[in-house]
C-alpha cells in the first residue's frame, strides 16, 4: 500500500514486517516514553506552567540523591506489580487486578503485626519471612477467583479483577477507619502501642485512618552503606527467577502457546484451567509481595493511602512498556518512580495536582499502544515516477 504525498514526488509506503528484529519493540518503547514526556509538555502549557521550567526541575530532582531514593521507594512496589503481570499477560489473560492483589498482600502481611501490638509475640526473626509468605499467599488467592471464573465459565477477567480492586480497597478502609478493627486507636493495641509511641515521643492523632506502624524489627533494612532499601535485592532475585521460568521451563512454554492461540493450546493438550490457576496464583502472589514491600520498606503501616497511590495500575503500563520482560520491568519501574516522585514535588512547588503523573503515564501508554503499529509494519518514504 502506498499513499502519495500530494504535490511531491514521494509516497509513503506501509509494509508488513516479515521478521521483527528483537530491538524494534524496545526502540518503540523508549521512543514512546520520550514522545510522551515531550507531548505532555502541552498539559503543562494548558495549566499555565512553562514546560521548560518543569523539565529542568525534573532533571534537578532526578539528579539529587534524596529524590532518587524517593524514586526507588515508589519504584519498588511497582517492580513487583509489573513483574506480576508478565506471565498472565503473556498468555493473554488480562489481570487488571494487580492493585487488589497488592492490597490483599499488604493486609495479610499486617496480620502478625496486629497480633504483636495486641500482645501476641513471635520470635523476632520470624516476622519478615512470615509476612512475606502471608502476602504472597493472600495475593495469590485473590488472583484465583478471576482465573477460575474465566477458565470455567468465560467470565470476563478484566471486569472481575477490577471489581475485586474496589472490594479490596474498601476492605482496607473498613479495617483502618476510626472505629475499625485494625485502627491504631483500637483499645486492644492500647498497652503496648501507646508505650511504644511514648518512647518515640509521638502522640496518637485521633480520627486518623491507619493501623499501628510496623515495628523496626519487622521492617526491611537498607542495604548497609547505601540509601537503597534491601527490597531491591528481592526484586532482582525474583526478576531473575521469573526470567528463567518464562524462557526455560515447561510453564513458560505453555504460557507462550496459550498466548499464541487459546484454542490451539487446548488441542495441544494443555489444561487451560490448571495453567491459568497456577499463573494467577503466582501473579497475585507477586503483586501481594508488592504490598509486603510497601508496608515493610517505606510506608510502615496500612492505610487507604497505599491503595490510592495506584501502584497496581502503574504496574500495567510498566509491564507493557517493558514488553513483558521481567528484567526490563525493574528499569521501567525506576523510570516511573522518577516520574511519580517528580509529580509529588511539582505538586508542592508549583501547585499542580500530582495526578498529572497519571496523565503522563496514560499519554505514554497511548503512544506505546499506537507505536505497536511500527513494530508490525515498516513505513518507508519512496520516490515515485512521473
Amino acid at each position, binding site marked *: 500500500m502506498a499513499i502519495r504525498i500530494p504535490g511531491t514526488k514521494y509516497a509513503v509506503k506501509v509494509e508488513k514486517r516479515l521478521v521483527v528484529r528483537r530491538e524494534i519493540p524496545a526502540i518503540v518503547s523508549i521512543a514512546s516514553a520520550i514522545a510522551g514526556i515531550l507531548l505532555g509538555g502541552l*498539559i503543562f502549557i*494548558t*495549566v*499555565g506552567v512553562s514546560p521548560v521550567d518543569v523539565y529542568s526541575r525534573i532533571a534537578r530532582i532526578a539528579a539529587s540523591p534524596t529524590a532518587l531514593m524517593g524514586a526507588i521507594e515508589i519504584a519498588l512496589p511497582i517492580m513487583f506489580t509489573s513483574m506480576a503481570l508478565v506471565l498472565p499477560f503473556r498468555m493473554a489473560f*488480562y489481570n*487488571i487486578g494487580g492493585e487488589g492483589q497488592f492490597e490483599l498482600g499488604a493486609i495479610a502481611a499486617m496480620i502478625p503485626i496486629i497480633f504483636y501490638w495486641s500482645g501476641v509475640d513471635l520470635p523476632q526473626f520470624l516476622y519478615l519471612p512470615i509476612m512475606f509468605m502471608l502476602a504472597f499467599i493472600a495475593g495469590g488467592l485473590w488472583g484465583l*477467583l478471576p482465573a477460575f*471464573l474465566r477458565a470455567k*465459565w*468465560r*467470565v*470476563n477477567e*478484566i*471486569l*472481575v479483577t*477490577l*471489581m*475485586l*480492586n*474496589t*472490594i479490596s480497597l*474498601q*476492605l482496607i*478502609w*473498613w479495617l483502618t*477507619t476510626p*472505629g*475499625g478493627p485494625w485502627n491504631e486507636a483500637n483499645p486492644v493495641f492500647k498497652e503496648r502501642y501507646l508505650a511504644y509511641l511514648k518512647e518515640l515521643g509521638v502522640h496518637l492523632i485521633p480520627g486518623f485512618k491507619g493501623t499501628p506502624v510496623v515495628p523496626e524489627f519487622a521492617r526491611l533494612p537498607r542495604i548497609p552503606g547505601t540509601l537503597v532499601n534491601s527490597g531491591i535485592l528481592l526484586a532482582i532475585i525474583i526478576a531473575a527467577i521469573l526470567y528463567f521460568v518464562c524462557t526455560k521451563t515447561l510453564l513458560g512454554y505453555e504460557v507462550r502457546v496459550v498466548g499464541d492461540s487459546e484454542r490451539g493450546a487446548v488441542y495441544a493438550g494443555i489444561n487451560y484451567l490448571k495453567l491459568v490457576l497456577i499463573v494467577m496464583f503466582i501473579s497475585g502472589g507477586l503483586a501481594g509481595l508488592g504490598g509486603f514491600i510497601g508496608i515493610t520498606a517505606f510506608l510502615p503501616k496500612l492505610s487507604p493511602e497505599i491503595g490510592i497511590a495506584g501502584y497496581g*495500575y502503574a504496574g*500495567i*503500563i510498566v509491564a*507493557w512498556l517493558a514488553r513483558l520482560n521481567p528484567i526490563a520491568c525493574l528499569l521501567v519501574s525506576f523510570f516511573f518512580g522518577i516520574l511519580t516522585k517528580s509529580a509529588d514535588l511539582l505538586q508542592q512547588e508549583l*501547585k*499542580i*495536582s500530582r*495526578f*498529572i*503523573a*497519571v*496523565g*503522563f*503515564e*496514560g*499519554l505514554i*501508554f*497511548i503512544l*506505546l*499502544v*499506537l507505536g*505497536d*503499529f511500527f513494530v508490525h509494519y515498516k513505513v518507508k518514504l519512496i520516490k515515485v515516477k512521473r
Partner: protein
Amino acid sequence: MVELTMINQFLIGALTVGTIYLIATLGEVLAERSGIVNLGLEGLMEVGATVGIIVAIFMENPWLGFLAAFITAAIISVIHAFACITLKLNQFASGLALYIFGLGIGITFRGYARDVMLGPKELMKIPKIRLYPVKIPLLSDLPVIGALFSLNVMAYFAAILSVVFWFILFKTRIGLNIRSVGENPAAADAAGINVFRLRYIAVIIGGGMAGLSGAYLILAHTPQIMGAPIILGRGWIAIALVIFSFWNPLRALLGAYLFGGLEIAYFWLQGIEVFKGVIPLLKAVPHASAIILLTIMSIEALRRRIGAPEALGKPYSRE
C-alpha cells in the same frame, strides 16, 4: 405514609444514580455492537465531569456543559477508534491507556480549575447550574410510581434515549448495518457496508456518551469540584452492565437502575444497626454484586449459546 415516602425517595435516588450508568452503558452497547470494546469509559467519564462542570460554570448553563463534555470525550475517543480500527491494534491495551490518560488529565484539570481558574464567585454558581428534579404535576404525587415523575430532565432524556437506541439498533437499516459489522465484518463489507466508517461512528458516539455520563454525575448527583477521583469505578460497572444487558439497550435500562438502587442502598443500609461495624464494606456491595451477576450471565450465555457480538475485540482488515 412514612413508609411510602421512603420507598419514593429510594426510587428517585435509584433512578437518578442509575442514569449515570445508563448513559455510559448505552454508549458502550453501541460501540460493542459495532465490534469495538472501549475500556476507557472510566477515564472518559472523569474528563466529561471536569469539562462538564467547568463549561457549565463559565457559561452559566448546564446544557452547554453536557454538550462540551460529549464533544471532548468524543474527540478523545477518536484516538481509540484510530488505534483499533485503522491501525488494528490491541483494543484492550488502547482502552486501558485511554482510561489512565483520562483519569490523570480529568482529575488534574479539575484540581487546577478549583485552585486557579475558579474564584469564590464562580464556585457560588454551582447551585444555580446543577440539575434539579422536575416534578410533573399530579403524576409525581402518586404513591410509589410517583418517583418516575420526579426526576431531573437528563434522567428522562436518558430513559427515552435507551428506547431510541433500541429502535435504531433493531428496527432500522443503519442499526442492522452496525450489528452486522460487529457480527461478521467481512460479509458486511462484501454487502457494500463501510465497516470502517460505521465503527468509527459507533466508537466516537459511544465515547461521547461516556463524557455525557460523567458530566451528568457531577451536575446532577455530586455537584462539587475536587482534585480527586469522582467516578470511582462506575465506568467499569457500566462496562459490566453491557454484558449484563446482553448488548440490548432496553435491558441496559433495567441493569442501570438496578445498580443505581444498589449504590443508593448504601445510604439506607448504613443506618441499620447490624451494619454499623462494616459501613465501608457496604460501598463494595455493587462491585461484589457485579461479579456475581457477571458470572450468572456468563453461565447463561454459555448455556443458551448467546453472547458478545461475534467479531467483538477483533480488528477487521481486508485481506
